[in-house]
């Protein structure tokens, strides 16, 4: 067949042709992102118009290790923010700062400012128990209590004193299970153990448990990585519905998942927040070279 070189009348030596094939990147587009790899200040708009949580200049140390470096980011009302990045980039650490889950880790020190509705959550007078109801969390592995399905959801409202009587409590349990899309599947066996449910159902039970204490923000740390694709799809559909009432920050290793569920995406790299932007922008035309390397699968 006639090749371009023939058609253009260019003479290509065998050596050159061999080199072309060996490199195999003749038309590879390189360095399309405009900001090079050494740049460490966050690219993109960290603030949103309608913030629920505001983080400014957050640093986290594990003893001497500087795990999060001067990260500023807002979590808006009714939005899903996805945090992506390679292992050890600090995305989970940052997520855990948002409801002070790092307090339980020895040697962990958090500096900077993290506010929810204008109130600093690291303030001396802040009680972490109501904070963790206000900012709920769903973990990678579903972790229902070894109790009945009903008790799993009722436990939170009961200890936080959210229900005045039994009828109230039942109403909260039912509503929470409905919101979590689990009601139809469990309504006939509320007294059976939560641990007897399938993995996907257990995860939705944990989400129902989180919702039951009327949070404003839900943090999700790889909520689907232990689930099969169908259960994952159900949780993702649920995330989309929950967005109407809550703010959601999700850490995920699946870029496709980040692309599917979030409105904004934040890319972390070695403790730095490299780039934040509209999810569409990040996945079609990222500005930072590191972001592009990561999402296109070019990290060595």
């Amino acid at each position, binding site marked *: *067949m*006639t*090749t*371009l*070189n*023939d*058609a*253009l009348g260019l003479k290509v030596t065998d050596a050159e042709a061999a080199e072309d094939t060996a490199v*195999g*990147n*003749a*038309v*590879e*587009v*390189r*360095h*399309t*992102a405009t900001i090079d*790899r050494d740049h460490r200040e966050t690219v993109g708009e960290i603030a949103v118009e309608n913030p629920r949580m505001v983080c400014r200049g957050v640093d986290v140390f594990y003893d001497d290790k500087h795990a999060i470096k001067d990260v500023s980011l807002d979590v808006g009302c009714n939005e899903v923010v996805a945090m992506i990045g390679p292992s050890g980039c600090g995305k989970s650490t940052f997520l855990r700062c948002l409801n002070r889950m790092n307090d339980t880790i020895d040697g962990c020190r958090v500096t900077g400012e993290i506010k929810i509705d204008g109130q600093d959550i690291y303030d001396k007078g802040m009680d972490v128990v109501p904070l963790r109801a206000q900012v709920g969390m769903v973990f990678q592995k579903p972790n229902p209590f070894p109790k009945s399905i009903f008790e799993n959801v009722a436990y939170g409202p009961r200890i936080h004193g959210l229900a005045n009587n039994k009828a109230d409590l039942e109403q909260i349990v039912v509503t929470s299970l409905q919101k979590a899309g689990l009601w139809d599947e469990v309504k006939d066996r509320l007294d059976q153990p939560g641990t007897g449910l399938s993995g996907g159902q257990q995860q939705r039970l944990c989400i129902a448990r989180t919702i039951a204490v009327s949070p404003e923000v839900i943090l999700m740390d790889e909520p689907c990585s232990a689930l099969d694709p169908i259960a994952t799809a159900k949780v993702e559909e649920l995330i989309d519905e929950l967005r109407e009432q809550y703010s959601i920050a999700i850490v995920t290793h699946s*870029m*496709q998942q980040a*692309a599917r569920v979030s409105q904004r995406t934040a890319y972390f790299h070695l403790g730095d927040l490299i780039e934040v932007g509209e999810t569409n922008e990040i*996945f*079609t*035309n*990222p500005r930072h070279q590191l*972001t*592009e*390397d990561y*999402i*296109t*699968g*070019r*990290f*060595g």
Partner: protein
Amino acid sequence: MSRPPEEGHTVRRYDAELSHVSMSVLEMGGLVLDQTQTALRALRDQDLALARSVVDRDHCANELGVQIDEELVSVIARRGPLARDLRMVIALSKAVTDLERVGDEAAKIAGMILSLYGQSRSHPSTHLTRDIYVMGELAVGMLRQALEAYDTVDTEKAEVLAFGQSELDAEFQSALRRQATFILEDARTVGHVINTVLIVKSLERIGDHARNLAEYIVYMVKGQGVRHKLNEAKRLARGPQEEPGHDAREDDDGPA
């Protein structure tokens, strides 16, 4: 891993697939460029066998186009390309369509040459066909530039081609005026003039396809907003009072 990140994907097979498909697009470009040049040579030499060979070879580019489309679908399905990879896949997919059309236009030109010279009646005068040579050179030049810009990922060249003034368009307008005067002078030339006009129209289309290709290159490298920018520039150039005019690049007539 020892390779620096810019060397390619962690999954090397992915690199190989993208590389193969982009080389195939180049090959297809070379093919349709050759078809166009051959058709024009057949006209110059009044070589009917050569013109026929262009018509006969049209299917090669189309088949290559189908093969490239299949490869692109496979890359999308299996690799889930993102960011620049995604833009590359989209750009290549669009490029294939334009290249196929170029091939179709070349075959049309060759067919027209067969009807210009293949019948017993008198051959057209050289005055009549002069426009074809002039426009042919311009169209081939544009296509060649587009393919070179693609080969070397030269966005500057691509931008000049995509957004610059088109000599070919101007030449096309004056060719139409000249051809009309030939009919006014001698109505018997009408058959030849029609064929000539169809050929220059095909050449004008080839130029448009070359500009589209250049536009895809800019999109591939720089991301979104290219087409929008172009339309905006056109709108500003036209000024506010004028209605948006007919633009040959916007209407996509299917392959003949």
